[in-house]
């Protein structure tokens, strides 16, 4: 409750004071200053984390790079603002960041009351449970009376309460402030069940002493569509951020990769030609306020959606998250891009 009040207060303050901020054209501002200011997580494995030399890398970070590449043909023209869960919304509202690519769940409250715009969902997440195999539990409905490890102050905690209440089950929450404390407590056996978003369960597995003794239950108790957010009131900027995601999806669908993008420009397929802006009299990028090469630049910088996914959180990373819902629509998932024409 306190969180909601805080959010509402911040939102109200923002609406009153920051109302004048929405008028300026973000694209022009970004072009003028020469970089995209991108709000990212303060550290979430696979999504935004430092690499060996301290540079940001990860799934959300690649979205920042892709947006920069679409505008400047250079994926490195990004400045990152690591924002905590509380800081992220004021940071976007005050104009401190141009776009928030920070594994933020799209909710009606954030879309309306807080004054943000969401459209593409770059990662469909959902809250799940991990248990010890020794418990012989096959479903979350058998968890009555269990001690559940959960991070406090998150939607996870609220979803957990809702789920157990709705199913008339008892549970003992074991709450911690920091993620690594929750991990350590679960590993040490202080609770029977661990709950967080599924992507988090995968990174937890990396830190357990005996990962094979644990299993993830089939129930997904919440929808967590994560995607980039922008301020309301600047449709051009909103379009660019949205279409960067759709371009990544479209590239995967067409089989355009970081390695073959130059080759694909010679493709005879009119759809691919149009997408890559090599069609005669193309206005595919100029209508967005960018160049017609925008999609090519994105793919050159980060690859297509599948490559971004694999490199950061999928098979090519230590996390090894399955594509699942995030597979393309024609491969059993729900990632779908509107036609580029």
């Amino acid at each position: 409750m306190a969180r909601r009040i805080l959010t509402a207060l911040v939102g109200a303050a923002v609406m009153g004071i920051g109302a004048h901020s929405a008028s300026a054209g973000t694209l022009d501002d970004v072009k003028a200053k020469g970089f995209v200011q991108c709000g990212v997580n303060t550290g979430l494995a696979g999504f935004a984390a430092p690499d060996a030399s301290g540079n940001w890398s990860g799934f959300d970070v690649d979205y920042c790079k892709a947006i920069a590449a679409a505008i400047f043909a250079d994926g490195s023209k990004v400045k990152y603002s690591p924002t905590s869960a509380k800081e992220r919304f004021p940071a976007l509202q005050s104009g401190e960041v141009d776009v928030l690519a920070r594994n933020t769940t799209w909710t009606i409250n954030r879309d309306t009351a807080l004054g943000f715009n969401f459209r593409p969902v770059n990662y469909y997440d959902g809250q799940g449970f991990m248990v010890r195999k020794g418990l012989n539990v096959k479903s979350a409905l058998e968890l009555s009376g269990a001690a559940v490890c959960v991070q406090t102050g998150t939607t996870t905690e609220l979803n957990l309460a809702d789920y157990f209440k709705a199913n008339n089950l008892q549970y003992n929450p074991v709450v911690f402030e920091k993620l690594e404390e929750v991990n350590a407590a679960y590993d040490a056996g202080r609770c029977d069940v661990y709950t967080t978003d599924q992507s988090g369960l995968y990174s937890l597995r990396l830190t357990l002493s005996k990962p094979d003794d644990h299993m993830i239950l089939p129930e997904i108790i919440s929808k967590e569509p994560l995607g980039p957010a922008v301020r309301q009131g600047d449709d051009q900027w909103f379009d660019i951020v949205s279409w960067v995601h759709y371009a990544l999806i479209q590239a995967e669908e067409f089989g355009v990769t970081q390695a073959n993008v130059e080759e694909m420009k010679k493709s005879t397929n009119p759809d691919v030609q149009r997408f890559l802006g090599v069609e005669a009299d193309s206005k595919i990028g100029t209508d967005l306020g960018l160049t017609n090469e925008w999609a090519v630049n994105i793919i050159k910088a980060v690859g297509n959606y599948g490559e971004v996914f694999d490199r950061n959180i999928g098979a090519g990373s230590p996390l090894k998250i399955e594509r699942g819902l995030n597979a393309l629509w024609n491969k059993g998932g729900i990632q779908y891009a509107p036609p580029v024409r």
Partner: protein
Amino acid sequence: MNTHQGNFVRTSMIEAAPAPIQTGGIAYWLRKNLFATPKDAALTIISLLVLAWLIPPAVQWLFIDAAWTGGGRGVCATVAQGGSQPDGWSGACWAFVNAKFDQFLFGRYPIDERWRPALVGILFVLFLTPMLIPKVPYKNLNAILLLVVLPILALILLPGGWFGLPFVETPLWGGLMVTLVLSFVGIAVSLPLGILLALGRRSTMPVIKMLCTVFIEIVRGIPLITVLFMASVMLPLFLPQGVTFDKFLRALIGVSLFASAYMAEVVRGGLQAIGKGQYEGADSLGLSFWQKMNLIVLPQALKLVIPGIVNTFIGLFKDTSLVSIIGMFDLLGIVRLNFSDANWASAVTPISGLIFAGFIFWLFCFGMSRYSGFMERVLDTSHKR
């Protein structure tokens, strides 16, 4: 009359007295300190047993079983976890600290430019060390180097943008460098400002007295985390669009003002301990207010409150890690940030990183504490009881 009478003559040799109880050596020390009474002996034995129970596993975990080198999570994970260590292995993951060491020192400061903070750090040590040793001469020159020249050099070198040095914006700063800059500035600002505030609060001029009291009471009444959060999150909302000033600067100001308020109360405690006679003596010598304070009152008052001052310094040094809530990465923040690097995710990475960060914090705090003890002995005149 040559008989000898009344005089006792010993007929046998006196027995040898037992050797005197040894008042030196290890045996004496042991007997005096560890085994003086049966209770002492019992406590000693129990303590030894506890140590014998604790230390070998700790040494085993920290040093013998530790993974010292390697290039990824594999060296710190067991086979079941997808690594190369045997099942059931547990040890410190120093390879993680090793691989990330430069980041822990400098944060995300560009690698080619890291000589700049390193140079500032070396100069800091070079200027600070002679300052700390009472016997080394030229203290005035030294103070100017440390408190004027070094900050100017740091202002030129660390952000750059002058003399052909590439500009390095503060969001890229991090690690121990941020911790030290924050604490150095906090300490250097809070001591003089705290003294002024304390004098102001004891002033007879009502406006100054009120201003200082209000400042101290307001700042002391707000948690540091709130000060930082307001400075970082709410302040931009109240500024006109496009007007921003550096987040790091905001944190520096916040931390410095915060420490000043605490310092003021510590110094005021010292001022109150100085007898009225000292003030009157100074007045009767015809000294001005500042002469009286500089020559008579403050030297005595500050000496009395050295433990309190150092306490505030140590608190400030550790409080700097709160800046991680506003998205800046001090030493602890950058260590924790690196837990999210999936290439190093393992069961022992977080604890190893935290032990490392804790050790570094301890080194600095313990150093400050020992030095303050030394200063108390050097400055000791008559107040010791």
